[in-house]
């Protein structure tokens, strides 16, 4: 009889194991239901043509939270029957998740909106994307559209030269001011090892005759600090830890608008521009809604929405937000995308060797 008493802890264990399974089961049920809904709506949609855009749409993005939310809200005004779920993280995390899903057997995302074209070139090479020739393409400059229609740019994001307005009296005009003596120890930039946008910049600068790797070597000699991402750069510059920052324009514009002592310039040599392209995944379970979503993002309304949160529209005929330069005014520094993709690992290694990665 005595021994029986020892049952209790085990009973507790089993109970908790069951309840663990139980809470999993609920989710399973939910998911099964929603999956069933999706496939039903898919079928009806196929039966009735394109009118019935409904079901769930899984949207993976690296856009800041509030912006992604605004975009989805705008889309749902037009397509109230589509239930959009968002996964937002850094571009690197999003791609990792996507590749892990692929590795595990099935990609869950329907639409992707990530930092730069090189990332999409990579996904395209891995055969993860679905070509789509959106009717809105008529208004998007061909430079920003993949020639196989696998991905399309959604906005223009320039990497600019930010500076702390308390510490810097005269606004800089050239990237080369960063290699001068009075900028020694005063520049911060994101690391290409962690940030896709920074890797893109390194690729573009190093392939540009005016700059080359010697530009980065000089930056290193001038005691440039490297941080993980663009957010960190803005913080360092706004907080006065550094006078200058190499950083994506809209983040600086945001901080400036909030009142931080920060401003930025587009240096005269030109700026690297990323386009935050959008794409549909190859095995999207809701192609109809995915296409409608892409169309919406590129449409006049969708672009206007992006502009309202501070992005430079890519679509012709819409002006850039106040303080930012639009497509026609930007002097863009660029490089061949295929070359950038191919050289990315080498670029990172080169960067590491210059900055003496230990």
């Amino acid at each position: 009889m005595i021994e029986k008493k020892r049952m209790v802890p085990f009973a507790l264990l089993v109970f908790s194991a069951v309840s663990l399974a139980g809470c999993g089961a609920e989710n399973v049920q939910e998911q099964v239901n929603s999956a069933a809904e999706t496939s039903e709506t898919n079928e009806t949609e196929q039966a009735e043509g394109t009118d019935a855009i409904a079901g769930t749409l899984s949207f993976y993005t690296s856009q800041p939270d509030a912006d992604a939310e605004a975009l989805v809200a705008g889309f749902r005004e037009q397509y109230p029957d589509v239930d959009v779920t968002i996964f937002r993280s850094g571009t690197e995390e999003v791609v990792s998740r996507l590749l892990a899903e692929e590795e595990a057997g099935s990609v869950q995302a329907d639409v992707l909106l990530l930092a730069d074209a090189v990332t999409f070139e990579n996904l395209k090479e891995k055969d993860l994307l679905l070509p789509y020739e959106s009717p809105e393409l008529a208004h998007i400059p061909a430079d920003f559209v993949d020639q196989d229609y696998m991905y399309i740019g959604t906005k223009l994001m320039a990497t600019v030269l930010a500076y702390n307005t308390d510490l810097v009296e005269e606004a800089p005009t050239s990237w080369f001011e960063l290699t001068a003596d009075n900028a020694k120890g005063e520049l911060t930039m994101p690391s290409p090892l962690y940030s896709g946008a920074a890797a893109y910049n390194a690729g573009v600068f190093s392939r540009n005759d005016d700059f080359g790797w010697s530009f980065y070597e000089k930056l290193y000699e001038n005691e440039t600090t490297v941080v993980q991402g663009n957010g960190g750069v803005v913080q360092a510059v706004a907080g006065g830890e550094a006078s200058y920052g190499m950083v994506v324009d809209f983040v600086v514009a945001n901080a400036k608008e909030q009142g931080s002592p920060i401003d930025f310039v587009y240096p005269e040599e030109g700026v690297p521009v990323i386009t935050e392209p959008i794409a549909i995944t190859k095995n999207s379970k809701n192609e109809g809604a995915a296409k409608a979503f892409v169309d919406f993002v590129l449409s006049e309304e969708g672009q206007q929405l992006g502009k309202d949160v501070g992005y430079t529209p890519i679509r012709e005929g819409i002006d850039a937000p106040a303080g930012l330069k639009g497509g026609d005014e930007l002097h863009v520094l660029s490089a061949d995308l295929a070359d950038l993709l191919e050289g990315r690992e080498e670029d990172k290694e080169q960067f590491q060797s210059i900055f003496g990665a230990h």
Partner: protein
Amino acid sequence: MGVQLDGAHQRFAFFQKRRLLAWVLALVIFCLFVLPVIRLFLLSFFQEGQLTLSYYTQIFSEPRTWTIFGNTVVMVAGATTLALALGLVFAWLVAYSDIRLKKLLQLMILVPFIIPSYILTLSWTQLMSSNGWVASLLQLLPFSLEPLQMYSMEGIIFTLALSHFPLVFLFTVGVLRKIPREMEWAARASGASSWHVFKQVTFPLALPGLAGGGLLAFIANLDNFGIPAFLGIPAQITVLSTAIYQEVVGFGPSAFARAATLSVILAAVALLGTFAQWWLVRKAKQTETIQQDHEPRYQLGRLRLPVELSLWAFLLMITVVPIASMLQSSLVKAYGLPFSADHLTLDHYRFILFENDRVQGAIGNSLLLAAGTMAICLFVGTGLAYMRARQPNALNRALEVFVGFPYALPGMVLALAMIFMWLEPIPGWNPGVYGTIGILFIAYITRFMVLQVRGSYTAMVQVDPSMEEAASLFGARPMAKWRRVLVPLLLPGVLSGAFLVFLTALTELTVSSLLWSSGSETIGLMIFNFEQAGYSTHSTAFSMLIVTAILLVMVSMYMLQHVRDRRIKDI
């Protein structure tokens, strides 16, 4: 006689049933904790379907790998040693000396652990930055002295040790209190000096607690990503956890395989730590009394006030100061503006509390996740600890290792393992956990279970089995045995484990950042998102609210414990 026979028979039947249960449990644990990790590890052994060790030979042949190993060793050894030293000093003073306000001191020691490391790091760098408080204080000095450069190996070790020494403290202080003072007296009566008593008696007896807490601190230092990423990137210091992250986000053709290879190496190091702990504890004697002894054993005399003052100064520096610098930046209109009357605002708090409904959703989710994780870990983890403590057979030891696996991996790697496992546990079948809050639940439970197991286990080994047997002999029913005997004795230790689980789950970031989906955002993610979008005033305001809330909960727990202690004394 009849009764006895009956008993023997039942005992046999029960033994069978219990063995079966143990094996079922082992299977469940294996599937939940080990399979995902194995699935990931397998990636490192296969190349295009072929079994190979080429990733290992490749990685070991790169000189960079050895630099990374070197950095990792220096970082982990430094931070763990410092954490052990700090933890032991505090534990000894709190357990044995006659310093005052011990309860409050104990509470303060926990603060650096409960402040999420991304917040702690941020506030320390701000504090030490060229325009921070420390710099302006140092400028007042006649000679020139620079504040500690946080973006350096020293900075990383310092921050890691600060966030993890409370683990050592928590596990050691209880053990110290149970060392019979008679043993120390005996040693001293035979002429041993204080130092000798410590070295020959106290230290060996305190070893189980020290080793248990030290192991967790070791693993936490090893797999921590936030601190070496934040402080190491500017200093160009790469350690294993950041190297794994670089591999994963580099999305090269063999990114996952290489990341998996590095993870296997990391897990091997963590396993070595576990064995080291076993080996140390195996040699340790277990001659503890049942009751914690709260009476001071050493009178510090004239030294008491200086010791108290320096303890408090240290604790205030590592808790209040970072929090204050965070508070300061959450109150100015925009990041970087000077802290003066015309720049002050509560707007960020208003935004967080009332204007952003996603913040409320995130708080709700995190509370739900943390409470759920805590509840399940509390039962399962205590059960496991009970089995491990009372029947330390091979199976139960193996279970302990299994449960520790997910904690020993960097969060990013565990998250990937979770995707591999739960998207399609059996090819072609998607149970639909992935993409819901359920996957976060599973991930948190597997990741933090070990905290509960270790907490409960430390509590268990301090309760003499004879107490339990006595209760049984006197005919206590199982429920009564637990309710009247075990629960009251174990409660403080078990609860401190549960508390750790709750807090770490509440502010978890790395695992969540890969596994969440809309509707399941968490506190850590919201802070991370604000930070990434450049709204650092919002992120500091939110962090401030979370830290305040946690402190409030701690203070109320402290009060509750106070009341409970009084009641126990009354009995």
